[in-house]
C-alpha cells in the first residue's frame, strides 16, 4: 500500500473544521515525486521552479505535461490583466466556488488573494463563515458570487438571464468571460485539492 499513512498525531495534524483565511498546510494521500526525481520535463510542468517545494504540485508532477497545461491556464485566467475583470473579482469568484464546493484549503488561499487585491476583508469573512456575501456587499460582488455559484452547480445553472443581469449591472463581455473562466477553473482546482489530500491548521497556532 503506498497511500501515505495518516500516522501523525492529531496534535500535529489538526484538520480545520471551519472556513478560514489562515495559512493552511496541505498533505497528499499519495506520494509526491522527490526533488531528486525531477527532470527538465517535470520542471517545465511545474512552470515555476519554486513549486518543487510544494507537495501538491510535486504530486501533480507525476503527469508533468498535464500539470503544465493546467498551470498555464490558471495563470492566464487569474493574472492576465489585459482587459476583463479586476483580479480581486476573479479571486472572489474562486473563493465563492471553493466555498460552495467545500474546499476549505482553496477558499482560504483565494480569500487572501482577493483581499490582497483590494477586496473587502469583511465581505470575504462573511462569505467564508456563512456561504453568502453580506447583503450590504456591492451589487457587483453579489452578482459575481451568485454567478460563480450557478456555474458550479451540476447540472450547470448559469443561463442567459445571468448574462442579462450582469450586462445591466455594467459588466462587459470580456468581464463576463473572465468570470466564466475563473469560476469554471475552480471546479477543476477544488476537485484536485479535495480528492488528493487534506488540509491542516498551522502547527504554531495550536497552543
Amino acid at each position: 500500500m503506498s497511500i501515505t499513512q495518516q500516522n501523525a498525531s492529531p496534535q500535529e495534524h489538526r484538520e480545520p473544521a471551519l472556513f478560514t483565511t489562515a495559512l493552511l498546510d496541505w498533505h497528499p494521500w499519495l506520494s509526491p515525486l522527490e526533488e531528486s526525481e525531477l527532470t527538465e520535463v517535470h520542471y517545465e510542468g511545474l512552470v515555476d521552479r519554486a513549486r518543487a517545494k510544494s507537495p501538491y504540485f510535486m504530486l501533480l508532477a507525476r503527469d508533468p505535461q498535464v500539470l503544465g497545461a493546467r498551470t498555464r491556464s490558471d495563470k492566464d485566467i487569474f493574472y492576465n490583466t489585459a482587459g476583463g475583470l479586476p483580479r480581486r473579482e476573479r479571486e472572489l469568484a474562486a473563493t465563492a466556488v471553493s466555498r460552495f464546493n467545500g474546499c476549505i484549503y482553496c477558499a482560504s488561499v483565494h480569500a487572501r488573494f482577493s483581499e490582497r487585491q483590494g477586496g473587502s476583508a469583511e465581505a470575504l469573512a462573511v462569505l467564508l463563515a456563512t456561504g453568502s456575501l453580506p447583503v450590504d456587499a456591492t451589487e457587483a460582488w453579489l452578482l459575481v458570487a451568485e454567478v460563480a455559484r450557478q456555474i458550479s452547480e451540476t447540472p450547470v445553472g448559469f443561463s442567459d438571464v445571468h448574462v442579462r443581469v450582469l450586462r445591466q449591472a455594467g459588466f462587459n463581455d470580456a468581464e463576463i468571460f473572465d468570470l466564466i473562466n475563473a469560476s469554471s477553473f475552480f471546479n477543476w482546482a477544488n476537485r484536485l485539492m479535495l480528492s488528493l489530500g487534506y488540509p491542516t491548521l498551522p502547527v504554531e497556532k495550536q497552543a
Partner: protein
Amino acid sequence: MTTGFSFEAEPPQDLIDYVVGIESGSWLDTLRRGRNALRDNAQQSAVLLLNPERDEGFSRTERLAVASFVAGLHGEQDIYRLYLGLLERSGEGHALSAAIRQFVSEGRTRGPYGAYPKGALSKEDLNGLVFDVSAGKIGNRLSAALKHAHLLVYHPRDASADALEALQQAGWSETAIVTLSQLVSFLTFQVRIIHGLTVLRHAGPAVGQGLPESTS
C-alpha cells in the same frame, strides 16, 4: 456537427470552438483570443488527457469512457455526444458505449453535496447519491474509475484516502490516479466553459460591443 471532430484532424480542430460552434473571426472567437494562453492550454489539456501519445497505463478507450460518463452526468448533450462518438470509434470502445449510457442515466443527480470534517460545518452536510458502478460489463478497473468520477463530479468533499485506496486495489497506480483525477477535474472545467460560451453565443454580443458584421 456533420463533419465530425477528431483530435487528429489537419488543420487541428479546437474542441471547444467545435462544440460551441464558434467561427473564426466571430465575436466569441475574438473574446476567446483575448485569453489566448487559456485557449491553447484548454485544448492542450484535452489532447494530453484524451488522446495522449503514450497512455501511461491508462488507455485511450478508458479515458474516453470516463469523459463520456462525466459529460453525460453534467447533462451537456453536445460534448456528451462528441465523447460517446469518439469512444465508439476507439478500439474496444464500441462495446462500452451502451454501458456508459446506462450508468449516466442511473447516476445523474444534482450537486454539489457531501460532508465536512466533523464540527461546526456539519450542519451544512448534505446527503446525496453514493453511486456504485457494477463491474459486470466493464470490469473492476473501469468501474472503480467511474465510481471515483461520480464522487468527484457530485460530492468532492466526501473524497478520502479510502477512495484512493479503492482505486489502487482495482489496479490503478499512483501516477494513473493523478491522471484520472486530472481528467475528471479538467472535464468539470471544460463542460462549464462550453456551457458558458454556449449561453453567450445564444445571447449574442452586448449592444455596442463587438462588430455587428462579425457576429455569428
